[in-house]
Each structure stands twice: as structure tokens, then as C-alpha cells.
């Protein structure tokens, strides 16, 4: 609750909304090893990122590790990272042979106090982003609000 108020205060009325950035695969590839730093910097500014191609498992664990080093209970409590994982049972012959997971696909990364995964399975993700009104509401309990923006993502057949 305090974190939400702080962000609204820092951004003022105009900046109280939530910024959603769509990041292309090309942009992420350009960043190379700076990918994690870029993502975390944006998320710490209160942005929600939609990555066209998600992080691989090694990068995700690195994101978790770096996130843990930067958690500050008054301003940043971590990340929420709903993403498609691929259907393990639909791996190719070579992926099965080498015991590889399917390649990463679309992923959403956001600050944990703003983004909440509601429902997720191998094919559908439902996430909720808390809105400016909710950010500034004193009545809102920690966790979900009632009128957040809902993002639905579905795996293509």
C-alpha cells in the first residue's frame, strides 16, 4: 500500500497510470547481456513489460537472483513474471532427446505490487494490473483491487 502511494506521489496525477511497454525480440537481442539490467530498471520504475520472446530459464533465474539483491521493502518488493512455458508434451524429437524445454515465448514482467497473476496454465494467462485509481485508493486492501486492467493471453493452437 505504501509503495503504491509513493509511486503516485513521485509521478504526480499525470503519471499515476501504469505504463505498459511492448518489447520486441530484436530490442531484447540488441541488449545482449544487459537484458536483465534493462528489464529490472524498467520494472523498478513501475512499468509493466510485455516481452515478445520471453527469457530462457537461465535468464529468468538470473532475474530472480538480481531482483533479490535489489528488494527494498519500502519501494520494490520483487517481480511478477507470468509467461508461457510451452507444452512439454509437445516437444520435438530433438528436444525430447536432449531433454530441452521448448523455447521461451511471450512473457509479461512487472513490479509485484502492481501486477498480479490471477490464473495461468500452459495455454492461458490472466493477469491483473492495478490502475491509477487503485494506486491512490486508501481503501484498497493489499493484493487485488476490483477494477484493475485485465490482460488475457492465450496460446495459439
Amino acid at each position, binding site marked *: 500500500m505504501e509503495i503504491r502511494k509513493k509511486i503516485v506521489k513521485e509521478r504526480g496525477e499525470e503519471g499515476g497510470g501504469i505504463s505498459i511497454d511492448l518489447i520486441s525480440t530484436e530490442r531484447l537481442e540488441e541488449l545482449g547481456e544487459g537484458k536483465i539490467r534493462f528489464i529490472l530498471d524498467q520494472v523498478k520504475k513501475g512499468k509493466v513489460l510485455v516481452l515478445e520472446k520471453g527469457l*530462457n530459464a537461465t535468464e*529468468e533465474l538470473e532475474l530472480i537472483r538480481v531482483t*533479490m539483491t535489489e528488494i527494498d521493502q519500502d519501494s520494490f518488493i520483487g517481480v511478477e513474471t507470468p509467461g508461457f512455458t510451452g507444452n*512439454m508434451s509437445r516437444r520435438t524429437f530433438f528436444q525430447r532427446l536432449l*531433454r530441452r524445454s521448448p523455447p521461451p515465448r511471450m512473457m509479461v514482467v512487472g513490479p509485484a505490487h502492481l501486477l498480479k*497473476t490471477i490464473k495461468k*496454465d500452459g495455454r492461458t494467462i490472466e493477469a491483473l494490473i492495478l490502475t491509477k485509481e487503485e494506486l491512490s485508493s486508501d481503501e484498497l486492501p493489499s493484493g487485488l483491487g476490483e477494477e484493475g486492467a485485465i490482460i488475457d493471453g492465450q496460446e495459439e493452437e
Partner: protein
Amino acid sequence: MGILDRLFKGFRSLFRKKQLSIGIYGPPNAGKTTLANRITRDWTGKPMGKTSEIPHETRRAKERKEVIIKAAGSRINFNIIDTPGIATKIDFHNFVEEFGMEEEKARERAKQATEGVIEAIKWLDNVDGVLLVMDSAMDPFNQVNVTLIGNLEARKLPTIIVANKFDLKEASPATIKEAFPQHPTIPISALKGYGMDNLYKAMVKYFR
């Protein structure tokens, strides 16, 4: 198990280590320490750590050496490492609001929990295999499970998925098995000891 893995495993067995370090991993409150306690009680007579319904009770990794497990005609000497739960976010408010903890203690717990996650990740460099503990009553597709599975595969670490709490009414170990069919899944109740014989057989089979 893939052909390359079998060849690799056969080659590795020529240079088998005397002790195998097995990390117990998973998200908070999956039952990692309860499982560690069950294993070490069964084979050494002593538990490893304190358990609690409050998440992040284990905030430092603990290691118990010389845990000799005998099953299916084999005998293997394990080091069991109970690791802190891995999470993508840690909010002290949860400890205050859900469990009535004092703010100062909650903040300290949250700080220690972040350090615990980092320590658990570091331990991945030093284990020979992993027991990945999932709560059978929870969604197996949570990001921690998925990230860990991907990492363990990238590191080629033998992994057994432990579908814990399978005795709960809402539990569905089959959902876990369906989500991650490439790894053996063993349903157990670490708290009650159900299914442990199957787990020990799987450990000597997949980790040796």
C-alpha cells in the same frame, strides 16, 4: 530419459562419487523442510530443521552429510541440502497481515528471505541432483517451478519431482505429472510419511 542422458549416466557411473549432494528445492511452503526432516529422520534418526506455516521459515541452506539410503537392493551415501524457498517477490506485509507478525520482525524475516533465495540459487552449482518439491494442491505452472525445471535441464541435473501433500482433498499429482512429463514424479506426503518408499527407490535409481 533420452539416449544421450543414458550414455552420459553410464559414463559418469565409471567415476562415481562417494557421496552425492542432493538439493531439496521448490517454492516457499511446498514442504521442503518437512521432506528433509522425513528423510533424515528415517535414515539418521535426527531431523534437519524447524517447519512453520509461515512462508520462508528456512532462510539459510542446511546440509546433512552421511545420509545413507538403502532401497531396491542399492545403498547410496547422500548429502541432503535443504534450501530456502525460491520466490520472485517477498513482501513483509504478508507476514504482518496474514500471520500477525510484528513489523520489525517481518521486515527482518523478509530481508533474510531475500538472502536465502540467493543462497539457494548459488547451491545449484554444488549439487549432483535435485528433489524438486511441489505442492500437489497448487498450480504446478507457477513461475518458480517452471524456471527451476528449465534451469535443472540446462544444467543436466537429474531431477525427481516430489508431488508433496498428495493426501490433501484438493491435491492432483496427475496434474504435475502432466505438466512436466519429462521427469519422474513421485506423490508423497512428507508430513505423514506416505509414499516415501517409492521416493527412496526413485532416488537410488535416478541419482546413482
